[in-house]
């Protein structure tokens, strides 16, 4: 069992967020990824006017999944160059769709090490200019090659196999999954930065075509362009930059077998369990103390499984939790108030820090129509591939 070196902080902040930005997610014709990142960086800087980026920022960690999309690798330096920070140490972090969750974790390492007082972590992906077949192929690269991709197993295919197994083991239905899609579209309709800002009724989800049975088109997240970033500093320096910091009080990252077929369970992600256990212990809280969460709903089944792995309900009871309405806005634990990957969009490298951006808005009362009342503690859950990587972070507002 993996254990963390920094246990028992009793909820003391690891780092503080002093600014955050996100481009609109969707189609950005005419902009390259680096330029889309500029939109996110500009917003983050404007939210933190006391920061002198050129003077203060000491390091950048940029989540970016694939150079195939734009024929552009070396995204760390590219981004630093394009946001006016040429000279700053900048590194691309790659963990497939979990890239910027891992970048966030890396940024925490940098601040906690004492080496860098102010760090930008973010992510970017430009995808919509590619055909669905190309995107399907690029995304599949996050799965095991010699046994999964080599045999024609796609990304939706991997999650579909988890769904088939979950349905067989626990009686979960396509209707449960459709409710998750519809809920996230309801939330996304309230988010002006979401890719698809419209209501999608359960019947529409149920009537959509199969991509990989039992998953249908509306069970899948969107192919989007987008970027997001947050600015981190040491908790003791936060007041120098802002009156409204958001603190990260727990961080966990873990792995599992790269191939789904080798995992102990086909209905649960061990990486999520390990990462969330570490994060909960660090924050010294229990799952029931979380007020809201952004979870990795690359496919609806992934959100349902995340409920169980994060401890929002017991194993096998994700379907019941959906039926109860607890994870909708106004429920006991609203999940994916941003619209999630499903409706907000999933520019893969940008997703992890876009979840952190939503937490920043919610915990500083800036989430407008989708604001969760009295939100104090939030959680983000970002996975890479079919779950071989998971990063979980816990946030709380300044007290």
């Amino acid at each position: 069992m993996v254990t963390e070196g920094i246990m028992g902080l009793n909820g003391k902040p690891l780092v503080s967020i002093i600014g955050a930005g996100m481009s609109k997610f969707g189609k950005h014709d005419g902009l390259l990824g680096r330029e889309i990142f500029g939109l996110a960086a500009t917003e983050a800087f404007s939210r933190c006017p006391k920061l002198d980026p050129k003077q203060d920022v000491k390091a950048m960690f940029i989540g970016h999944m694939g150079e195939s999309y734009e024929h552009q690798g070396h995204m760390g330096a590219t981004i630093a160059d394009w946001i006016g920070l040429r000279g700053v140490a900048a590194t691309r972090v790659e963990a497939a769709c979990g890239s910027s969750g891992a970048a966030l974790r890396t940024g925490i390492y940098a601040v906690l090490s004492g080496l860098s007082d102010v760090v930008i972590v973010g992510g970017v992906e430009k995808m919509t200019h590619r055909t669905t077949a190309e995107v399907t192929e690029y995304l599949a690269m996050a799965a095991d090659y010699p046994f999964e991709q080599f045999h024609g197993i796609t990304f939706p295919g991997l999650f579909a196999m988890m769904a088939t197994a979950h349905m067989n083991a626990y009686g979960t239905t396509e209707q449960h999954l459709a409710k998750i899609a519809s809920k996230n579209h309801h939330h996304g309709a309230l988010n002006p930065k979401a890719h698809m800002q419209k209501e999608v009724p359960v019947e529409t989800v149920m009537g959509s075509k199969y991509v990989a049975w039992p998953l249908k088109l509306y069970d899948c997240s969107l192919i989007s362009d987008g970027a997001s970033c947050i600015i981190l500093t040491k908790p003791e320096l936060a007041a120098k930059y802002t009156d409204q910091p958001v603190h990260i009080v727990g961080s966990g990252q873990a792995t599992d077998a790269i191939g789904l077929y080798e995992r102990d369970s086909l209905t649960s992600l061990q990486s999520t369990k390990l990462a969330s256990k570490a994060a909960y212990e660090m924050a010294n809280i229990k799952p029931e103390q979380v007020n809201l969460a952004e979870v990795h709903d690359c496919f609806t089944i992934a959100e349902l499984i995340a409920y169980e792995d994060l401890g929002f309900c017991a194993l096998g009871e994700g379907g019941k939790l959906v039926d109860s309405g607890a994870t909708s806005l106004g429920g006991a634990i609203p999940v994916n108030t941003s619209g999630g990957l499903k409706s907000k969009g999933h520019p893969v490298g940008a997703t992890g820090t876009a979840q952190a951006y939503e937490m920043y808005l919610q915990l500083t009362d800036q989430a407008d129509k989708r604001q969760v009342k009295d939100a104090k503690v939030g959680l983000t859950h970002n996975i890479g591939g079919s779950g071989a990587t998971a990063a979980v972070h816990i946030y709380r507002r300044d007290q």
Partner: protein
Amino acid sequence: MTTPTYVNTPVEPFTIEQFYKFLEQGKLMGGICQKCKKVHLPPRPYCDKCGADKFSWLNISSKAKLLTYTIINVAPQQFQNLTPYAVGIVELAGGVRIPGMIQGVPHDQLKIGMNLQVDFGTCSQPQQWPSWQRYCFKPL
């Protein structure tokens, strides 16, 4: 002074490529950890259970049981001419699992728990790297 004894072990390497080479010879082979006896398919340098690094090759029966499956409608370029096609994960004797394409079973007759067998020699072999012989799952 004694002469050191070099033990020559003409054992095929415990690599993924070797797994596929065995398939071409009609053998389904996994690596069994000499210490804890966990069978690894594909083989690897370290046992994921006990961490030991000594393995032996083990012949595995091609009898398989279907654990989960899906039917792929949207495929990468290379597999588009096959859609819709079924893929699944099967369990072999000793609890080893592998994923692959399921052929020869009507899609509406696929069922978790059904018996299949690993078939090799009749599946496609790519021209480019890696030019390994594919296996697939077929009805008994």
